[in-house]
């Protein structure tokens, strides 16, 4: 009992969760100096301006859309749904990794999640914001969207159609957005108190103090806090699984060949986590280098995320196999034609690109050398995000473009407004993310401290008394 417990190593001799040499003070200092610093690093300003340019482009594209109408987008019969839903599903999927890290891995007591949960959750929130833009603006008149989307007593006496998966989606996504924000904020409270206590300037101390609700770390409060966090994790877990399930219902509940498949819910959820982890890697790899956080976000984190990507990627590849098998085994000529069109039709390039990324390239992650090479992983994570975007493109466009009757076949070509809106949301996402990096502790300070020997307490030797 006399010797202090070694800094977290599991039975398998893996890289430690955080590198040795840290104590409470260095952890607090390393993480809190970023939001409390007075200067804005040049690199940050450069990235921020580029991101802001993207966000400006989004504003322009949406402004023109509202003034003109959704005719500026390329979707039209028979491809009535295109970039708007592709990007919606893509962004929502990306968000899932944040909730998985903060909720599911918390329930499984995976301590390595602590260094990455904060910014993965931030990523979730910003991804949901970007996702919401698409369906809201696809309504054409977003200021009226409230009565199309939400059940509230309006002057026309109209109510949403509760038998439709589209209204389920409204409930699922708005609950997801709210709970993600709440969970994230609750996690931030003790760290905001740390910033309040360390802030040198009075305005910063007041702002962080108000945001921290006057948190003082009392034992009774910590107890309630831990209970609340555990409950929120327990609630977020079924929530996150339900969100992409409900998103997949938008397709699976319809009767369109290529959409009407029971494999959709699990396959969508796995795909969401897969793309989400790719996005976490795309963000974590540059951020840890730029801010010198390599001792807190270690190779252990990077490698574990690569492993989760491999596992979920394999489930997604299995989903592709199932889709093809279902189409053949159904013996329905429409299903079989849809699959044949997907593989050999005018959009075959997108299908085969998708297969080569999500089923073939991902196999590289079996090798430790690849999983621990941050440059290769960074490039791969970007490609995986492209692959998952293609997946939604394939599911949506190739299922619609050749309708039941050849006279109603048609091609879909996105317009420049489609692209501007899509790239604009990436700009908005990066803008929000860079603001987050600058003003909020990007790693959970108090959670990382719980991993240190200083936080440990010996078993109660007075238990008998």
């Amino acid at each position, binding site marked *: 009992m006399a010797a202090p417990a070694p800094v977290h190593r599991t039975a398998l001799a893996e890289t430690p969760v955080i590198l040795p040499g840290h104590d409470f003070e260095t952890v607090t200092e390393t993480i809190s100096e970023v939001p409390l610093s007075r200067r804005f690093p040049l690199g940050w300003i450069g990235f921020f301006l580029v991101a802001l340019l993207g966000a400006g482009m989004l504003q322009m594209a949406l402004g023109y859309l509202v003034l003109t109408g959704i005719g500026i987008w390329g979707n039209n019969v028979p491809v009535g749904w295109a970039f708007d839903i592709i990007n919606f599903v893509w962004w929502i999927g990306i968000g899932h990794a944040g909730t998985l890290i903060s909720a599911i891995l918390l329930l499984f007591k995976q301590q390595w999640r602590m260094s990455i949960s904060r910014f993965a959750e931030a990523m979730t929130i910003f991804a949901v914001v970007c996702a919401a833009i698409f369906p809201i603006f696809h309504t054409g008149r977003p200021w009226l969207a409230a009565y199309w989307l939400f*059940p509230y007593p309006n002057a026309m006496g109209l109510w949403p159609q509760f038998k439709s998966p589209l209204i389920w989606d409204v409930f699922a996504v708005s609950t997801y957005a709210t*709970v993600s924000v709440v969970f994230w904020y609750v996690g931030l409270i003790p760290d905001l108190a740390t910033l309040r206590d360390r802030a040198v300037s009075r305005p910063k101390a007041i702002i962080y103090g108000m945001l921290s609700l006057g948190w003082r770390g009392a034992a009774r409060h910590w107890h309630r806090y831990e209970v609340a966090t555990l409950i929120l994790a327990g609630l977020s877990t*079924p929530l996150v699984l339900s969100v992409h399930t409900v998103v997949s219902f938008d397709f699976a509940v319809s009767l369109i060949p290529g959409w009407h498949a029971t494999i959709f819910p699990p396959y969508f959820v796995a795909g969401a986590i897969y793309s989400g982890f790719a996005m976490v890697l795309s963000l974590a790899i540059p951020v840890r280098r730029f801010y010198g956080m390599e001792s807190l976000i270690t190779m252990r984190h990077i490698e574990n995320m690569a492993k989760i990507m491999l596992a979920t990627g394999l489930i997604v590849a299995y989903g592709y196999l199932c889709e093809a098998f279902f189409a053949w085994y159904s013996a329905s000529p429409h299903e079989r034609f849809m699959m044949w069109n997907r593989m050999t039709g005018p959009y075959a390039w997108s299908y085969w690109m998708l297969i080569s990324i999500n089923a073939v390239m991902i196999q590289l992650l079996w090798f430790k050398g690849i999983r621990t090479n941050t440059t290769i992983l960074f490039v791969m994570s970007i490609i995986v995000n492209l692959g998952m975007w293609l997946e939604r493109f394939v599911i949506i466009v190739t299922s619609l473009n050749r309708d039941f009757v050849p006279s109603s076949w048609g091609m879909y070509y996105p317009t420049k407004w489609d692209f501007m809106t899509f790239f604009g949301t990436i700009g908005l996402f990066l803008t929000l993310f860079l603001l987050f990096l600058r003003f909020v502790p990007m790693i959970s300070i108090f959670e990382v401290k719980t991993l240190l020997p200083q936080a440990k307490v010996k078993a109660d030797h007075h238990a008998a008394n």
Partner: protein
Amino acid sequence: MPQTDASNHPLHGVMAEYDSSQALVDAARKTVAEGFSKVEAYSPVPIEEVNDILHRKRTMLPKLVLAGGLTGMATGFALQYWASVIEYPMNVGGRPMASWTSFIVPSYELTILFASLTAAIGMALLSGLPMPYHPVFNVERFSMASSDKFFLVIERGDPNFDRQRVTEFLRSTGAKGVYDCAE
């Protein structure tokens, strides 16, 4: 914080500072063994043992969350039933008005929504937060409670409270510093 005459300057309590979770837990045990009951500990990380030693009470939050979740479920179902059956009945493909199976998803989501909001808001309100001011903030060293120091306060409301005695007792628990905490 010089504090000479306790009767002229009302005290919130006497505060002791420690270096580690272990030191705080040991001190908390001694404090309870000594017979003090109005005691609170402050730490930069959650320490489950301290709450068990000082307060012995588990929070009622889980029960509130259950109630919140059930309210959400009932609200979701009632809303959909009322809108689809009573207020705005519409025949879709000959299905019954009250197709309860299709009401499951929104009811499920509202269950989670209400339960989560109860958990977060309940946690704050049961703890009396938001509360920007608290006497413990009067001690300058207390700003370290959110980085790497641990504090224990024996409050004036304790039946055994006597400034002199409490200060000496806290010194004997291995405290790195003992401070008067003004009201």
